[in-house]
């Protein structure tokens, strides 16, 4: 009985499961059968393996070969199983004898010429392998950068099957260690546009709202006529957010790796991501999904950063509704008949809206041509449960000519420093809570001692509640914002002014 053995990783979302790849050579007609729930791409591996092996100068035995991917109950997606299947088959055939090959995780697609080609999702695979205690991983040369981000594992990268087989032969015969992958050359810095809050002309209120949103993690609605800089403000929100923590950056990079967007940078990118999907986007594009393997959507790509929805009322209602659950839980679960995949999706939502469909309903001499019905329909699209989760509603007015000559506004670095300090204060105050941001603190915590504010501070709020102009949910939201304004101004607890400012920011903008 000839058995060959190696390992791979099967992904469901960003979660990986270690897979044992076994190959058994039996007597029978020459075939390679792959069992263990392969998808189409994975099931076609034998065709590529035969050609790749002959290009590498080794022969696949012309006998019946059964390959099993265990555990057989989870679907194996994609072509990254080519390399592990080839290694298991060649181990069964006695070509590969190295123990390293048996213990290592192999990832990669094989070309007919024996080259090992890059695949998606290498980072989450390598992370899963490292967590499972695997010591060596072999990845395609193309994916070295992302694989090397994981510290606890030795990364090897071969250009072709032939090269890898030579390494294993040398390891088996002479004990030569399998060479480690060298760091990829640093990529030339492309002329990426550097954005900064200093670019924003005027707009003191919107600037403050951006700072506040970054500070407490408050979702935000910017409303105003076209061309006043709503997009500009949203783009710059990421520049004042604190850098991602290592674990968050790895999660974010894993999602990009799955989407095939991982840049070949040799260092971990800790910049919060910025996603701005177009308003024609489908539900699957926003929350994730797709046919075959489930891919992350825009909300997951924005994990740890900003999701900007320009022309928010133009998005399909179904798309806007699907945002509610991720906004609440910070994750999105895509359920299929056979599998259910969860992606992280904790993002800062920034909505932008025009005052009306034609965009001209602004100022005293309004040239708006929209009918009353159109206006009402437009504004109602954003109301309801989604807006309940938006703490800051700010109106962005047209910039007066006088603002051009003013000195440019404060830069992102200075604002970012204040945000970081304010976040430090929050982390200290909410240390007993799972989420240590003002924007996610439960209302019950804010309304009870020790964080209950004295009645002279909340007088305006209490009055609103009594009159019925403010709901209890609205009350909580104002309190959260008040804590953020207090943190930014260095107050230990919110003052009456902080509460007043928060109340103003909450009710600003559209009538919603």
């Amino acid at each position, binding site marked *: 009985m000839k058995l060959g053995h190696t390992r791979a990783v099967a992904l469901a979302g960003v979660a990986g499961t270690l897979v044992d790849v076994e190959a058994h050579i039996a*007597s*029978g*007609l*020459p075939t390679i059968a792959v069992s263990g729930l392969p998808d189409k791409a994975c099931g076609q591996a034998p065709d590529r393996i035969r050609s790749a092996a002959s290009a590498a100068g080794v022969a696949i035995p*012309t006998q019946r070969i059964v390959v099993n991917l265990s555990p057989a109950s989870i679907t194996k997606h994609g072509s990254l199983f080519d390399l592990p299947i080839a290694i298991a088959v060649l181990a069964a055939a006695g070509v590969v004898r190295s123990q390293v090959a048996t213990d290592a995780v192999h990832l990669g697609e094989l070309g007919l010429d024996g080259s090992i080609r890059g695949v998606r999702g290498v980072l989450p695979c390598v992370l899963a392998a490292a967590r499972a205690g695997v010591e060596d991983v072999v990845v395609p040369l193309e994916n070295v950068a992302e694989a090397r981000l994981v510290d606890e594992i030795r990364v090897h990268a071969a250009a072709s099957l032939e090269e890898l087989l030579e390494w294993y032969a040398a390891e088996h015969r002479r004990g030569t260690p399998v060479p480690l992958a060298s760091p990829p050359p640093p990529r030339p810095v492309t002329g990426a546009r550097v954005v900064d809050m200093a670019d924003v002309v005027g707009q003191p209120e919107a600037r403050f709202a951006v700072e506040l949103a970054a500070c407490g993690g408050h979702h935000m609605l910017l409303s105003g006529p076209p061309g006043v800089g709503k997009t500009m403000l949203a783009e710059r929100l990421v520049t004042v957010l604190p850098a991602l923590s290592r674990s968050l950056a790895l999660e974010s990079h894993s999602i990009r790796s799955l989407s095939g967007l991982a840049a070949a940078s040799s260092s971990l990118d800790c910049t919060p991501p910025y996603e701005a999907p177009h308003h024609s986007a489908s539900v699957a594009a926003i929350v994730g999904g797709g046919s075959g393997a489930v891919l992350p959507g825009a909300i997951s790509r924005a994990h740890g950063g900003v999701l900007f929805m320009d022309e928010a009322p133009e998005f399909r209602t179904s798309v806007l509704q699907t945002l509610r659950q991720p906004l609440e839980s910070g994750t999105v679960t895509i359920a299929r008949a056979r599998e259910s995949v969860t992606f992280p999706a904790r993002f800062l939502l920034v909505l932008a809206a025009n005052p009306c469909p034609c965009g001209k309903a602004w100022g005293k001499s309004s040239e708006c041509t929209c009918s009353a019905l159109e206006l009402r329909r437009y504004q109602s699209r954003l109301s309801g449960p989604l807006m309940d989760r938006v703490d800051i509603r700010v109106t962005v007015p047209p910039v007066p000519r006088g603002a051009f000559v003013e000195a440019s506004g404060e830069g992102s670095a200075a604002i970012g420093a204040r945000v970081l300090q304010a976040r430090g204060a929050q982390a200290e105050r909410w240390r007993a809570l799972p989420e240590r941001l003002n924007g996610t603190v439960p209302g019950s915590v804010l309304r009870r001692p020790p964080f209950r504010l004295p009645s002279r501070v909340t007088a305006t709020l209490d009055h609103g509640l009594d009159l019925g102009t403010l709901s209890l949910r609205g009350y909580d939201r104002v309190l959260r914002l008040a804590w953020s304004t207090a943190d930014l101004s260095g107050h230990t607890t919110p003052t009456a002014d902080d509460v007043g400012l928060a109340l103003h920011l909450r009710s600003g903008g559209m009538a919603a």
Partner: protein
Amino acid sequence: MTMTDGRTGLARRGEALAARHLAGLGMEVLERNWRHGRAEADLVLRDGAALVICEVKTRRGLGYGDPLEAITVTKARRLRQLAGAYVSQADEGFGEVRVDAVGILWPDDGRPQLRHVRGVWS
């Protein structure tokens, strides 16, 4: 038929070699090139109580792959049906029915290499 004499000659030589080899294993050749409708069994043999339908594939080189690779699942299934047809018209009974394959690599200037696979349809 477009087959040249050279190639059918090679096939005939291969079948003869396979028949000798299987006989050497203790099998009894019942028929050669037994036809049923459009299908043909290269060799029909008796192996103890078993009826064996055997497909023989002979090639000069590996340019188009191993000779046995030419026997696909479809082909094996057709051979199995052929076995059924043989049993129903035969006078004698069989305890078991089996489909075997023999692949022969026979270079023009060398000795033939033969490989026999038992029970390809299972």
